């Protein structure tokens, strides 16, 4: 039976410390985390600004952020590809088919997720929190930090969801990274490649890792929300 053999080989690959396999996992984790962290300050600040202020065009921004959530990542990949290609606006960076390019793609994909989730958390916050901070004399920056601290569980949920989206996306990683072994080959692009070659063991091993990552980050999310409930932050 081909499938059972493939699964057995997958576990052998995983537990024998196969260098190629673990390098792929390392590249995936590294580019996802760095991309996410690169997007976080801007996205959280933007989510806070949109969620807590009234200004003309605000609803358009909310609409765009939410619409960006449903964009396929290949489209983001295409956009970035055009920017980073030699004739593109950012061609001088020479980021195409490199880890910085891969990270830029992950950051772009994470951006709307982080904005939309932070925005929702800030909008759900009690408006008296910001008002209290203001009337007690806090600066704009301190008001922002205070409100973000109050909705920290929502911001954490944003980060966890954003990480889940970037680690599992394949479109942008394939187009921008180019699936170069040892350099820009990620878990998802490797699965796509190996499967197309008829090599299932590595694909299944990487699939198991992705599932494990999904289970772990969502366990963290459940724990965080449990803490939030017991702290009386969410009802």
């Amino acid at each position, binding site marked *: 039976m081909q499938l059972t053999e493939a699964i057995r080989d997958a576990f052998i690959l995983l537990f024998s410390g196969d260098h190629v396999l673990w390098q792929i996992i390392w590249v995936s984790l590294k580019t996802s985390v760095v991309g996410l962290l690169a997007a976080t300050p801007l996205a959280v600040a933007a989510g806070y600004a949109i969620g807590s202020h009234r200004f003309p065009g605000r609803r358009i921004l909310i609409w765009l952020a939410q619409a960006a959530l449903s964009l396929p990542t290949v489209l983001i990949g295409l956009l970035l590809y055009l920017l980073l290609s030699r004739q593109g606006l950012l061609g001088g960076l020479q980021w195409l088919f490199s880890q910085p390019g891969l990270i830029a793609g992950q950051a772009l994909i994470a951006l709307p997720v982080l904005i939309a989730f932070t925005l929702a958390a800030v909008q759900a916050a009690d408006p008296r929190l910001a008002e209290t901070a203001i009337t007690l004399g806090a600066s704009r920056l301190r008001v922002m930090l205070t409100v973000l601290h109050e909705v920290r569980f929502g911001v954490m949920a944003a980060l966890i969801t954003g990480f889940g989206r970037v680690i599992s996306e394949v479109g942008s990683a394939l187009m921008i990274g180019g699936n170069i072994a040892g350099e820009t080959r990620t878990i998802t692009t490797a699965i796509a490649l190996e499967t197309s070659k008829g090599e299932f063991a590595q694909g299944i091993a990487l699939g198991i890792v992705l599932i494990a990552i999904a289970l772990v980050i969502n366990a963290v999310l459940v724990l965080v929300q449990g803490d939030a409930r017991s702290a*009386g932050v969410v009802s």
Partner: protein
Amino acid sequence: MSVLLSARGLQKQFGARPLFQIDLLEIEAASAYVLTGINGIGKSTLLRVLCGLEQAQCAQLEFDGQPFSLQPYPRVLRDAIVYVHQHPVMFASSVPANIGYGLAARGVAGAEIDRRVDDAMAWAGVSHLRHSRPATLSGGEKQRVALARARVLEPKLLLLDEPTANLDGAAREQVMALIPALIREGSSIVIACHDRDLIGLPGMQRLKLRDGRLHLR
């Protein structure tokens, strides 16, 4: 008595609907006022306008003898005027951090904050709540922590929005007991309320909002 705050031609409207149109509001230094009026007449809104949480038109505004405009809300007023919500909210940090919040925002040194927070906690009778989680405090406890959080800043003008509403029994008595002490300390206070016992406190002047106009009694 010197005038602490005077506002002429103070108007607030929601859309086309005028809420109030006040020819002259004068708050004297070191004086206490109750602001009465039926629900929805704009008492809370007036307090929120004075502390800069809501915008309004004002033809002429003076504070401590200096002319100001309401928009943008001036820093001098921000530092001198503190508003306390009807149902105050606590920051999730800790009870002492809540009380010291405004001092930290003003850049006061840590040791000085600790000293003034301890003093304010003793004053409000909340020293035993030092290690309680702010979210778990009762309504009366939150109100007392909020009063301590405002008092510690030694504001020139303190605006209290129905501080005893929805409190009863001992909780109400404990909050009531803090009000005369606040008045004696030399701040000016405006209390929006329906509470007859607060209205009847000695030395209280009475402002009444009716039909969009302010009357001093």
